């Protein structure tokens, strides 16, 4: 199995975003910025849509489930790579977390329309390559690749 590692080769441009935990008012801002930037590149509409879904779901998960983290986007000539890292709490059972409909979202998060348990499954669905690793007490790392 592939392991999570940033692939530094052939990077044309890097975007970096810090995401704070529980900052609901700004949730979605980073992915919206990413989308607007990629819109300006000559990227095809449906590819753009997939990247938008991947980054949005990742960002929301950082806000509602993690203790804070980062999203790095590597723009390459043939693909976009998205790296999501956080500083905890980590996911105990990744297989369970990846199951459609599984969610530990709080009542507050559910009230805001999150918590359908579809984020991770959708991230995997829209990615051509998807790697998730997590260590309890350390953090979660996700790599997603969308090829043009």
């Amino acid at each position, binding site marked *: 199995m592939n392991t999570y590692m940033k692939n530094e080769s052939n990077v044309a441009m890097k975007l970096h975003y810090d995401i704070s935990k529980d900052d609901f008012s700004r949730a979605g801002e980073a992915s919206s910025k990413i989308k607007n*930037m990629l*819109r300006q*590149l*000559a*990227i095809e509409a449906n590819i*753009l849509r997939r990247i*938008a*879904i991947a980054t*949005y779901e990742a960002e929301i998960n950082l806000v509602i489930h993690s203790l804070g983290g980062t999203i790095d986007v590597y*723009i390459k000539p043939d693909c976009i790579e998205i790296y999501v890292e956080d500083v905890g709490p980590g996911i105990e059972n990744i297989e369970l977390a990846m199951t459609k409909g599984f969610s530990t979202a709080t009542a507050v998060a559910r009230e805001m329309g999150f918590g359908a348990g579809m984020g991770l499954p959708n991230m995997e669905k829209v990615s051509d390559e998807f790697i998730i690793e997590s260590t309890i007490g350390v953090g979660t790392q996700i790599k997603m690749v969308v090829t043009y």
Partner: protein
Amino acid sequence: MREYWHSVVLEKDYCNGCTHCLDRCPTQAIRIIDGKARIIQDRCIDCGECLRVCPYHAKGALVSSIDTLNNYKYTVALPSISFYGQFSEEYDTNKVYNALLKLGFDEVYDTAHAAEILAVYEKAMVEKEHYNKPLISTYCPVITRLIQIKYPALIDHIIKLEAPMEIAARHVRKRLIQEGYTSDEIGIIYISPCPAKITSIKNPIGIDKSSIDEAVSTEEIYYKVMKIIDKVTDIKPIQCSTGKGIGWARVGGQSYAMEIDDYIAVDGIDEVIKVLESMEIGKLNSLDFFEGYACVNGCVGGPLNVENTFIGKNRVRKLTKKYGMDEPVTIDIELIPENMEWDTPIKPMPIFKLDTDFKRALEKMAKIEEYTQILPGINCGACGAPNCRVLAEDIVSGNAKLEDCVLLKNQPKG
């Protein structure tokens, strides 16, 4: 890209270069250059936001005047559906329509009637076929254009149906030609609540040529009608729509007429943008239908209407009751695709692309990032661009200079 005709125009003499419109423009189509606002044609979607906020009335809509009636042998007025909401209750809509005849139109067709027929067609279409949900209404042309330039992935969701005004015009023109008029002799004239509808007559989406010849503004016609309405005596029956068609003048009226349950109807361009952003990432896939309007309160809020939008909205609501929401709709336009649907594809117009070549677009993007870092980031608009990032983009595309930034220029060197 083909030359794009726009109804929204700038009257330079009135513009004093203030920045009111800059920030309001949802597609960042306005720049202030040499003290005057300028509209970048490719980017304008004719929403009319700038028209509305300009304190000096320096922006207008290119529109014909009623004198144009002299150019045709036989003229037909198509009052917009929101025309219903412009007149106080003492003036019956049918009387208003008769006043239009007195103004010189040879015929008036109740556009709302075309809307209620369209709703019947649309309902059957949505029920029968499999579509990408939610389907997006094309009734507000601003929203369709916004999707073309910014949300091309949603083009497949657009329900490719004509606007009621176009269905009415096609129908009337066909009849008049059968009666022996030549196409040149017929003048079908829309009474428009907004510049966007005028643009879609001159520059239609989804069809090659509009069946409507020209548009006049509700504003002009309203005052002319008010001058003569008390003198209108012989009254012919013209108004024929039930409440279902009239309701299209307000937000949600279309969905109501279609008897759709799972829909959202959203007004105001900023709110619509938020919804389209969510829709683009698949957050609204459980909905059946989406009705979006650039104007707050929908078409009654059109910038060329005269009545306060909330009063107009209330009147329309009352009129829908008066003319009945459950009355049977007379189907006197055949429910076939050639009467109801668009026949040319809707193309994306990706105006935000920096370059058609990915590599060059990337290079430009890198430069834009560099300039954005240098610029102060306070988005003051004094350079004439709506914000620092747009200035950076303009610098990279060769349309502005770093020195245009007032703050940077005044900074002590060193």
